[in-house]
């Protein structure tokens, strides 16, 4: 067979398999090579699945025909555990949901309980919450950018983002004594105020960081492989993205500006000026671009919060619900009793049910809490963005090459701790 004929056969075969061209139906009857569908198990142990995730890929050649995610390897029954503890006791569990961005999980959960208890958080606490949440967003996006680039093969960026992430993790360490499982937020406020030294360090970082983002961008956007592997990959239309319930940068990449920080403003966000970057094409590249832009926006938000923040209490003063200040617990009998009662019995929540969504860096992280009164939630449901994004994986990966599967996991920014709960 001449070279041209082989090429023609291969081309025709591709059209029959992936898209039967209606104008050339005869291509199906061409002499074809022997084809066979191949079933490939990707995972549960695979470096690019960001945790323990298995996907059964049905392949035609190197193209994905169907992919079935098999999840639950990291299922720990967090929702069941929530029913067995008090509201305060659940805060450390939320750290272990999305374990690279614990602060935002704490934030989302505390906000939900505050909505249930109808507590207003003092101004300074709102600013502190916003600052730390945005620092966490930067960490989340740095982590994502580094690992996504690593998955695609651009190893250098990983070292740069992790170098800068380390500064912020050390900052967290100084803030609350932990780098990843932070549990710094409390129902009604935050655990402690920022010290002057911490504010100083954060300001230094804000001056240092934006040029570093430019650096990451240069590494990637001048890299032809990166552009080729992200542009036009895993395209999803706005309509489909909404129908699948995608949120966060994954949805905004398709051109929907749904961001709870703007749609249902909370905390100190309404007092800050920032824009929500929105993509056009709905491909992996747009979602990458959005996350990079969000890092610049986060820097702006933190800067404004630091400038606007006034002195004041960092915890709401509702003794039946919120914890007393730590120094009073050690010196004052009533405060000690209050602390003891809150941790052993919890507070009495009114019967009712609420849903409260928060814009975490992965998407809408929501808590649906049903209370029948008493100190424990009757039912607590976590709306985890990673889980819902995995629902669209099959749809978004069809027709792409097997190597793109890795890119598509990455573009959701999934973390299995949150996905499997």
């Amino acid at each position: 067979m001449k070279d041209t004929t082989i090429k023609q056969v291969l081309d025709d075969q591709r059209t029959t398999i992936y898209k039967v061209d209606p104008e050339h139906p005869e291509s199906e009857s061409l002499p074809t090579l022997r084809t066979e569908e191949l079933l490939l198990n990707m995972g549960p142990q695979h470096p690019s699945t960001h945790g323990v995730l298995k996907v059964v890929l049905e392949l035609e050649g190197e193209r994905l025909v169907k992919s079935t995610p098999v999840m639950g390897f990291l299922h720990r029954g967090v929702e069941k555990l929530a029913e067995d503890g008090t509201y305060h006791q659940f805060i450390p569990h939320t750290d272990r949901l999305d374990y690279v961005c614990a602060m935002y999980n704490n934030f989302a959960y505390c906000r939900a309980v505050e909505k249930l208890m109808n507590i207003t958080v003092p101004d300074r606490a709102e600013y502190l919450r916003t600052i730390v949440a945005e620092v966490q967003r930067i960490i989340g996006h740095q982590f994502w950018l580094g690992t996504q680039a690593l998955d695609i093969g651009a190893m250098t960026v990983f070292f740069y983002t992790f170098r800068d992430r380390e500064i912020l993790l050390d900052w967290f360490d100084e803030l609350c004594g932990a780098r990843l499982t932070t549990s710094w937020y409390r129902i009604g406020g935050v655990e402690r105020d920022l010290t002057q030294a911490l504010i100083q360090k954060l300001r230094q970082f804000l001056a240092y960081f934006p040029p570093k983002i430019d650096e990451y961008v240069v590494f990637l956007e001048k890299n032809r492989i990166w552009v080729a592997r992200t542009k036009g990959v895993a395209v999803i239309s706005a309509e489909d993205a909404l129908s699948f319930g995608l949120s966060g940068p994954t949805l905004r990449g398709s051109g929907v500006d749904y961001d709870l920080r703007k749609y249902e403003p909370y905390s100190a966000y309404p007092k800050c000026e920032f824009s929500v970057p929105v993509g056009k094409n709905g491909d992996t590249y747009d979602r990458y671009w959005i996350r990079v832009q969000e890092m610049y926006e986060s820097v702006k938000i933190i800067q404004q919060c630091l400038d606007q923040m006034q002195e004041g209490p960092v915890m709401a003063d509702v003794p039946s619900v919120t914890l007393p200040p730590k120094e009073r617990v050690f010196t004052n009998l009533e405060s000690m009793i209050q602390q003891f009662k809150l941790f052993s019995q919890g507070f009495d929540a009114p019967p009712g049910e609420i849903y409260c969504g928060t814009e975490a860096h992965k998407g809408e992280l929501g808590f649906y809490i049903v209370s029948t009164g008493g100190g424990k939630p009757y039912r607590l449901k976590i709306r985890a963005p990673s889980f819902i994004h995995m629902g669209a994986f099959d749809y978004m990966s069809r027709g792409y090459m097997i190597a793109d599967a890795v890119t598509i996991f990455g573009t959701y920014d999934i973390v299995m701790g949150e996905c499997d709960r």
Partner: protein
Amino acid sequence: MHSLAEKIQQEFPNGFVKAVEWRGDIAVIVKREFLHDIAKYVHDDPDMDCDYMVHVSSVDWPDDEERFEVVYEVYSIRKRHRIRLKTRVPESDCIVDSLTDLWKGADFMEREVYDMMGIRFRHHPDLRRILMPDDYTEGYPLRKDFPVQGKGWRDTFEFLSEAQ
């Protein structure tokens, strides 16, 4: 009553049971037979326009005659409102119509409800367990009669009782 709930009541007087507004959340309780029709109305009607599925959840009320509650929360990106649709199903016949034809994302969310609470969804394209293993036979973990420490071979573990 909130205007959105009123609209649902006017449109479906037979399917509407009750509407509750608490802490700014609107919850509409509907009859199971009408769930799909009402959801379709909420999805398609230009005034409702709820194109975004937030979450599907379930609550177990073991003392009630209709034991399980299925909760759908939908949001409208354009109108910026949120509605929670709830329906009750008895344990003997715990099946509701799937909403996967309206919101594609309901696929995984309904599978999770099936996995955790054992509520089945009619016309669901792929109703299998999702978080628990496929061969898991020890029941549905989020039901209230399922012990926190687990069932099956976990019963052989020695747990310290509170008295110890």
